[in-house]
């Protein structure tokens, strides 16, 4: 990928290796995620969506930065906070909304909802309702890649809280022992629901745990798409070369509550405000403009197009088809006879 001419040579690699169009598309995806979450939140509050959902507002930098260098044939496993990963990997918001609205047009035909959102066609093996549930699954996908002699990778998203699950330990150990092409991406947003990392682990960073598996552990600023992407790109390259897994930690923050029922009793307004001031989107916009890679007018246009796409997506979802209530047992088995 060629860098565009005008950018200064002293700019960090991220701005050199991608074209202006690619970088602007990354910004568009960050906006899509932000507006998607806001749209979902509003639809939920208006009673159009039931159940619960976990918003990733504030974490768009890691979602897009981590998935930018992935191919369609690479896999990701995602989490309960997975809308951003899904869009980052290339899913269509309107089909995601259709899923939230429980429609046949949805990615899971209305059976999965937010916690199981998946777009297999773009390599997303699914969000997961079980904290840590996706970790060994990603390792298994990577094992299949290796057996099939592909140079694809499996990227596994998980949170700081998930790193306290036994599944984390078993998954990282197996990936390391078998030198599998996995990129473990921990989005450390400081809390597992209400419990801070200080109260749930005895080390400062989740990346500190990589040494127990003899794999590199890298810490990045999760609110800087550039910082995330550069570390991930290296991890992906390492995996494609057959050199094994890497654990990349993205320090970030969710500015919304854990889920709809969160009263934020476990953190201060100040902390939330402080992180809102470090919003990854304006940060990225500013750098794009500083490097002359995008004009203010272009940025505004991107914002608007994202808003339009989200609005259209919600409309599409609202008009979707309701499943037939007599089809409860459909797709339990591949052979419906069973």
């Amino acid at each position: 990928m060629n860098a565009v001419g005008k950018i200064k040579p002293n700019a960090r690699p991220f701005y050199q290796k991608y074209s202006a169009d690619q970088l602007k598309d990354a910004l568009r995806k960050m906006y899509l995620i932000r507006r998607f979450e806001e749209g979902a939140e509003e639809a939920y509050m208006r009673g159009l969506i039931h159940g619960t959902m976990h918003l990733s507002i504030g974490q768009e930098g890691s979602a897009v930065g981590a998935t930018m260098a992935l191919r369609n044939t690479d896999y990701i496993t995602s989490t309960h906070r997975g809308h951003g990963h899904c869009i980052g990997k290339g899913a269509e918001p309107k089909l995601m909304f259709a899923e939230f609205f429980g429609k046949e047009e949805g990615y899971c035909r209305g059976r999965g909802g937010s916690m199981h959102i998946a777009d297999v066609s773009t390599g997303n093996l699914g969000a997961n309702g079980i904290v840590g549930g996706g970790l060994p699954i990603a390792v298994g996908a990577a094992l299949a890649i290796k057996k099939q002699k592909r140079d694809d990778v499996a990227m596994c998203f998980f949170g700081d809280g998930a790193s306290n699950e036994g599944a984390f330990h078993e998954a990282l150990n197996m990936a390391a022992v078998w030198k599998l092409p996995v990129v473990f991406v921990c989005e450390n947003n400081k809390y597992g629901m209400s419990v801070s990392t200080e109260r749930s682990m005895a080390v400062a960073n989740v990346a500190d745990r990589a040494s127990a598996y003899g794999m590199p552990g890298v810490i990045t600023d999760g609110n800087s798409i550039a910082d995330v992407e550069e570390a991930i790109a290296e991890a992906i390259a390492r995996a494609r070369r057959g050199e094994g897994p890497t654990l990349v930690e993205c320090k970030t923050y969710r500015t919304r509550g854990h889920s709809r029922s969160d009263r934020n009793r476990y953190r201060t307004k100040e902390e939330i405000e402080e992180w809102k001031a470090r919003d990854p989107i304006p940060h990225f916009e500013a750098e794009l403009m500083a490097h002359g890679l995008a004009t203010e007018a272009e940025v505004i246009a991107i914002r608007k197009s994202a808003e339009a796409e989200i609005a259209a997506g919600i409309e599409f979802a609202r008009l979707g088809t309701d499943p037939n209530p007599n089809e409860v047992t459909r797709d339990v088995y591949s052979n419906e006879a069973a």
Partner: protein
Amino acid sequence: MRELTYAQAIQEALAQAMDADPTVFLMGEDIGVYGGAFQVTGDLVHRYGEDRVMDAPISELGQAGVAVGAALAGCRPVLEFQFSDFATLAMEQIVNQAAKLRFMLGGKVNVPLVMRFPAGSGTGAAAQHSQSLEAWLAHVPGLKVIQPSTPADVKGMLLAAIDDPDPVMVFEHKLLYKMKGEVPEEPYRIAIGKAHVAREGRDVTVVATSIMVHKSLEAATILDAEGIDVEVIDLRTLRPIDTATIIDSVKKTSRLACVYEGVKTLGIGAEISARIAESEAFDYLDAPILRLGGAESPIPYNPELEKAAVPQVPGIVEGLRNLVRGRM
């Protein structure tokens, strides 16, 4: 009498148990300052401190093992699973350790712990947050398994569970947490292992569990208008099962139906049916034994599909009507 919600009744039982016995403590995920995913522990952490209302790392297997070890060493832990579905991560400690240690060690120890499992569908949380796995644990000797259906029952049975020298598993249906009912203020116990006749009737016996007790009572009221007199037995305890109470009822009504939310196949209704079919009550049966259980599928996200996946009042009414009218 003053009314409490089901969640408040649990909280009161936990508080009274901690007041009465310094060895009782609570552990779980987000049960402290967050107050619990379903606000059951609420502000207990402020009243009893972080040592007795402990937030644990997200490590269900480890938490269960910690509860076992603490119980062996003289404490009475009460462990809250945030959703019963996560018990799938802790079955090793629950089934191989907690349930069997006393037996394996020749009766030299006991394991006085309580585990609480918010269970069931109806919240739109989809397949991994809506299961009813109580039948699994009711299959395991060494455990006791209860499923209280009212605020008054959950307070009394939870206090009995905390007193119990053996491990007791408590299944709480999430849709019951907001249900209100009269609850005595003082501490009291309701015996584990005794079923409760929630409604007397002559024509058919319904054995129901948890939220299905209420749906069955609703169905009974509707059928009453049709002249069908339904007896509703709240099973209350899934292990050990109070077979005698059910036998007596079936001898009277000659008809049996089991209503439960868990997957129909190998759900608790299978055991109730089999116990009656092998008992002296068999000769009193005038009709096949009806089971109304959960669909043979995971719980779907879509709200209409979700409702269709578990027994609802109209289906119970129809099933019982056909059973009594001999149209099965």
